[in-house]
């Protein structure tokens, strides 16, 4: 049992060794392709639904939107899941429980903040004593979905964005690509052809 765990923990060492070997990149690329395909198309979700966003999350799971076709199956057990979807308002009393569920999820794991409450506190941002202003205060959020509540299509877009991010990962840290955000900041370089002026 312990030897098996040691093998899993050694994947990074193998990746580093492959990078140094001539021709190892081919193996690494194939390995990444399999890994990213497997991870990206089986994003089982932990439905952390605490408020009305959970209704949209439930709607997304059933036949009209059918997230099974993306490989996103809701599982009630955090130990079975890859992505935690925080759908709803998180109160100060609830935050430790959410953190504990997050800690129970096995790596690799991702987090989607669904809805304005999970993103920033939403309508509870001002004049409220008990609401956490965004789950990114205690969770590493990968995808933010705005809306009050967001449509299931928005959640679908979030899952697909997350899949892009998952597929950009590599067994070797130096090969992991950065995925740019959906909305560029004003300080970012304009998209499209470099040097193109208007």
């Amino acid at each position, binding site marked *: 049992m312990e030897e098996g765990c040691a093998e899993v923990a050694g994947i990074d060492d193998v990746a580093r060794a492959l990078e140094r070997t001539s021709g190892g990149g081919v193996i690494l690329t194939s390995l990444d392709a399999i890994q990213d395909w497997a991870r990206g198309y089986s994003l089982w979700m932990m439905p952390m639904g605490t408020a009305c966003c959970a209704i949209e999350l439930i709607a997304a799971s059933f036949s009209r939107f059918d997230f099974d076709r993306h490989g996103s199956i809701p599982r009630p057990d955090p130990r079975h899941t890859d992505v935690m979807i925080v759908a709803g308002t998180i109160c100060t009393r609830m935050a430790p429980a959410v953190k504990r569920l997050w800690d129970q999820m096995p790596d690799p794991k991702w987090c989607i903040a669904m809805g304005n409450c999970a993103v920033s506190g939403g309508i509870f941002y001002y*004049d409220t*004593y008990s609401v956490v202003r965004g789950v990114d205060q205690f969770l590493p959020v990968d995808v933010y979905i705005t809306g009050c509540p967001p449509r299931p299509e928005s959640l679908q877009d979030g899952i697909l964005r997350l899949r892009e991010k998952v597929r950009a990962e590599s067994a070797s840290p130096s090969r992991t690509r950065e995925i740019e955000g959906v909305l560029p900041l004003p300080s970012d370089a304009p998209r499209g052809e470099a040097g193109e002026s208007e």
Partner: protein
Amino acid sequence: MNITELREYLCTQYPDLCPLFSIEFGDGVLTVPSDRLGEAMCSLKDLGFDFLGMLTAVDYGDEFELVYRLRAREMHLGLFLKTRVPREAPHIRSVTALWPSANWHEREVFDLFGIVFDGHPDLRRILLPDDWVGHPLRKDYEDPNIIRRPDYL
């Protein structure tokens, strides 16, 4: 039985409660002094009010008003019971012995208003973390973590 019949019934059974009973907006309201709460509650339970649906409080500045919503399921009747406690010493008798559903409601009122229910089996905070300071639904509650909404929003 409707609400006027309830008043007559209450007046024949418990004449001392009769002057405290009033009908406001079609609902029976029994306003009792806080030291007579236990007595009134026992009488109402004997009368058939076997279900405590809700229990809450209102901050009126120098005193708190406690509001109990009682229901008599066989008579199809509802009744409000109100009592006031002073802000300096907010103590009231617990009714968990009569209606077990009062347990969590009284914990909530204790949590958010700081009203102490004497005789409650397990009086501690229920909605807020245990180390919370203050009682947020009091009008004079101040918390530095609250972000006030600016005037232009």
